């Protein structure tokens, strides 16, 4: 029987994980072709931060070496972005003219860094932080320059800032909110994080709005960024000297290709519970480019869950349903343990239990609605994070263990009869 053709656009973690699942479930079902825009085999993007910080090498973060693609008979086009999807002919066209027909198409194009529309964003020395090339550029800059400004105090921005600092740069993080990681941490945990990062040498401008990136007018560095101009929290205009500006102001799902192909995109390619696009059931989407029930996930765990379901469907088993994920966060900065999951910010209808031990730098907040744990924010001691995450995902009642909940699974076990 003639094999079905599966084409995958994107060679990142979500897509390749889907292939791995698929190969395990239905080896030989498909002829597989993969297009990757980067010139690298699948690597662990999450570990770019340790690479930047000098704690790991690029080689160490490769997940699937070229030999893996060979071994599974996958046709791999690296450095070869796809430019067009022809849904009528059921083929994709790459920038170099390569075309590949498909019976099933898997879009896993991930996301694109968002760069705010400020004057000077195109200057030399202004980078986003997304891939190996960005990472390498930052590593190079760190050998030649002294002052770095990271715009964005989210996960990626802090990891970039920490990495640059590890490489010897003086780094200031400029953040719009007055709390670091405000989407992952409450104010108190954010303050603890800021304190411990500050103790390591990072500087912060919180509540600050970037207004422009300023260039050297003349000299050998003409055209390269020299400063970040911003409005500080008190409304004063401040110029921060910067030889390197890393913009980490968030990402946008990379849906340009899908959009052009007429697939419904609303903050991501809209997919069903089987990860098929709602517009064309032959086309699947997983990862950061997909919008499931209105959510485009940016963290690896949900993407892997998506890949698993998608693989069962591609394998024609049709049994899996993806119902969405609860997400939890960790920061990849060595020595800083933080964890957050669910609705950690609380609000009406919720109750909070908090614990704070400034001496050991531990802060924990658990958010409860009714008798269910709905959110957790842990700083300094995240040992129980996975247990909370499990309670949260499973929606188990915690009524009987509420008073021990803060003290972890072992304590709660003691409390139960």
């Amino acid at each position: 029987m003639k094999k079905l053709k599966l084409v995958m656009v994107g060679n990142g973690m979500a897509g390749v994980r889907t292939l791995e699942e698929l190969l395990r479930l239905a080896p030989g079902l498909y002829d597989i072709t993969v297009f990757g825009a980067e010139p690298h085999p699948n690597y662990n993007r999450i570990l770019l931060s340790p690479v930047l910080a000098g704690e790991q090498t690029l080689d160490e973060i490769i997940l699937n070496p070229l030999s893996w693609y060979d071994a599974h008979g996958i046709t791999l086009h690296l450095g070869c972005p796809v430019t067009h999807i022809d849904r009528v002919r059921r083929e994709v066209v790459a920038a170099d003219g390569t075309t590949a027909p498909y019976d099933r198409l898997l879009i896993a194009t991930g996301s694109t860094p968002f760069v705010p529309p400020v004057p000077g964003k195109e200057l030399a020395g202004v980078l986003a932080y997304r891939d190996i090339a960005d990472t390498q550029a930052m590593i190079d800059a760190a050998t030649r320059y002294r002052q770095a400004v990271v715009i964005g105090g989210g996960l990626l921005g802090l990891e970039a800032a920490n990495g640059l600092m590890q490489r010897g740069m003086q780094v200031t993080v400029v953040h719009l909110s007055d709390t670091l990681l405000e989407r992952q941490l409450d104010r108190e945990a954010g303050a603890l994080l800021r304190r411990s990062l500050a103790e390591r040498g990072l500087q912060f401008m919180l509540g600050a709005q970037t207004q422009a990136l300023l260039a050297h007018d003349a000299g050998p560095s003409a055209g390269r960024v020299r400063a970040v101009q911003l409005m500080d929290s008190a409304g004063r205009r401040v110029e921060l000297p910067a030889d390197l500006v890393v913009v980490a102001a968030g990402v946008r799902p990379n849906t340009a290709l899908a959009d052009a192909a007429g697939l419904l995109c609303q903050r991501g390619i809209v997919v069903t519970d089987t990860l098929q696009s709602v517009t064309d059931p032959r086309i699947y989407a997983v990862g950061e480019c997909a919008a499931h029930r209105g959510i485009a996930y940016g963290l690896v765990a949900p993407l892997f869950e998506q890949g698993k379901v998608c693989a069962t469907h591609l394998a024609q088993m049709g049994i899996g349903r993806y119902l969405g994920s609860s997400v939890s966060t960790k920061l990849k900065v060595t020595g800083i343990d933080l964890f957050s999951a669910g609705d950690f910010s609380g609000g009406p209808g919720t109750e909070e239990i908090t614990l704070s031990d400034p001496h050991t730098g531990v802060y924990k907040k658990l958010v409860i609605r009714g008798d269910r744990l709905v959110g957790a924010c842990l700083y300094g001691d995240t040992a129980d994070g996975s247990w909370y995450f499990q309670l949260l995902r499973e929606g188990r009642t915690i009524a009987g263990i509420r008073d021990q909940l803060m003290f972890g699974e072992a304590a709660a076990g003691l409390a139960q009869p």
Partner: protein
Amino acid sequence: MSETRSTCPYCGVGCGVVIEHDGQQITGVRGDPEHPANFGRLCTKGTNLHLTASPVVLQHQRLREPFKRATRGAAPQALTWDDANREIADRLLAIRATHGPEAIGLYISGQLLTEDYHAFNKLARAVIGTPHIDSNSRLCMSSAVVGYKQSLGADAPPCSYEDIEQADCVLVSGANPAWAHPILFRRLEAARAQRPGHKLIVIDPRRTETAELADLHLQIRPGTDVALCHGLLHAMIRRSWTAPSFIEAHTEGFDALKTLVHDWIPARAAQVCGVPESDIWRAAEWFATSPASLSLYCQGLNQSSSGTAKNTALINLHLATGQIGRAGAGPFSLTGQPNAMGGRESGGMATLLPGHRDPARAGDWAEIARLWGVDAADLPGHRGHTAVEMFEAAARGEIKALWIACTNPAQSMPDQALVRAALERCELVILQEAFAHTATARYADYLLPAATWGEKEGTVTNSERRISRVRAAVPPAGQSRADWRIVRDIALRIDAGLGRAPRLAAQTAEALWLEHREATRGRDLDITGLSWATLDRDGPQQWPYVDGATSRLYTSGRFATDTGRARFIARPYQPPAEDTTAQHPFSLTTSRLRDQWHGMSRSGSVPRLFAHQGRPQVRLHPDDAARRELAEGALVQVRSARGELVLPLQLDQNVATACADIPMHWGEEFIGAQRGVNAVTQGAFCPDSKQPELKFSAVAIEPADLPWRLTACAWVAADQGASLRSHLRALMPHFAYAHCLPEPGPDGLVGWCFEAASAQAPAPERVAALVAALGLDQPEVLRYTDAQRGRLRLLRRAAEGGQAAPLQALLRVGPHDEGAWLLDLWRSRQPAASAGRWLLSPSAPPTHMPTASPQVCNCFDVREDAIRLTLSHCSGSPSERLAQLQAEKRCGTQCGSCLPTLRRLVATTPEEVPA
């Protein structure tokens, strides 16, 4: 540095002290080696006396200037002495003019000096003209007074302390000298060590440390003392152990008594008293047949609705066996206050006139009128209200003004509901006090600051009729003044207001004493041979003193009655005024702690004195508790027909079943929102002595349903303690149960611990107030909060010490005793970090934290756990092991108050022989 000799202001033993000072500040105290009461020894309380005069206490706990309240409940406003004296005199004159002199009552104290007593007595009876003057000695000694007078003809304890050394048999009845009169107990212990065959019999419903030393402990049912004495006398008569020739020659009334006790066969007495019959026979034999038998007794006999009968029933035994008037023999009443005796001598009580005169006798009034130089018609001429009667009269509205001095009736009087109703109803309440924060202070319209120990001149008389000089070492704190002077200054204004010559005009304490001395001329207590110069030259002297001191009375067999014969008093046994019932099944007694005294206004100012047994508790036998499923430490409600209070439960084998015991000391100053132990006690009193029955109340004890607990404590610099305490105390009324106690700390630190319980979670604003008061609103605080469940835990470590830093402050709110171990951690000042994550956990650490073991030796700060550890490697006989322990830890080598405990620990801690 100077030294001033004076006496200790606590119990009636009347020990001599040497005050060390610099003329402005008292810096130390030691026992006076030449004082015949103590020969240099002091008990725990006495040893720490100088701490009651520390700068912090002087500044924060003393009343330092006159105050006045515009209205009840308002904050007191300072005023000058001149204004205070004028206003008080005017108001007393107005009340006197409108309602007559008998609308004014004076309630004074056995802690006043004889000179103060004399001044008050003249103020009441001669200046104001009211008969209503009584003393808190009414709660203490009045049954002994009447007992002596009925049996022996005069209120004169016939014995001396040296009789303790000379007795072959000592009967202690209703007294716990091991704790309440420790120095006498040291003498008793020493005597026993010197006298092989010495017999010690203790009669007490509780197995006290005194009872533990006894050869025979008769653990009688509360209130059955008279039945026991009748049974003992029956046994003595039956076995011919009596002294017929003494009875024949020196007594009267024996036949009537013999008839009465005929029915009291020991088997019946044993049944009524709940003791083995054989013990009655044995006690009777020991007492009657020992060469010299001495009895020592105190509140167990006195504080009773048949207090006088108990006293006379015991004296009957002495008379029947001739155990009186000889060395080592006699009925020896121990007084509870330092100058209860002086008050009796100077007649500062409703039932007494100066010089042991009697207000029931017109002739005695005439003599007083002559002595005082007033017209007899100006004196009231009859006896006035005794303590309980006075407050009853005030509650009825008959007494309009109460002048209270040096005592704290809102803590110490029985039936607090009545006492407080009386204080509230009075138009004018004057409180003359040294300490600012007593429960009574809340009710006062005028607060007059009185000088106190170390600041006063005068005399006191101790239990053995020994008069000692009290001397001032330093000036009075703030604007405080000697009590007699406060009295005199107002008396002068009253006399002036009445347009007559001053009736109380003495310029010095000595002048007052000389007036008092004159009143003794020709009386049984004649001290006309004595002067302050003699006292200064020869030291303390026993009365009567005409040509010299008298150590023992009635040696000739002639008694102070009209006939010269001692009287047997035949009073039938009467059960206590109320009986236990199904509703109130426990008989509650009140007792004393070793290291506290009275209402704690003085001893409570010394955190060290809380180390031994420093927490309010009601004690119950473990079997009774088990039957009611009450656990150690549980909060229980103690309820009588009159009132109730909530206290933590302490299980105590030494309390008999169906009995309960609460130390008398706890009042609202320490267990706020409540009326102290006397909320439940009764005002029923002895018909003869008018002494109320503080030793017997029928109560129910039930679990208190107060699931919410709050603990707040902090170590602060000593001079911050007062401010923290006032914050904490202000919160007490908001809780169904609360106590606020000091914790002795290392140099310069004092701890305050506030524990409270309530039915509902405490209001957030109260908690917020506490957080601020304890400095727990700072960023470095460890915190656990579950606001919806009302659970909160805040912990702050000391700033210094790093990992070894102890807990500085602690606040926990939550259900029941969860986290109670943190209090021990705070107290112990162990490194907080070692408790790690358990600090915030609802569970206690699996490895038990060091709990604060009770402090046994307060002189050298040795706790029970350390003693037991040491004893585990001490070998030999009990006395050898005790000696090794003392050599190693020094415990019990200074004041000796802990020796009974040490002996018990020796007996109960086996040596651990290495395997």
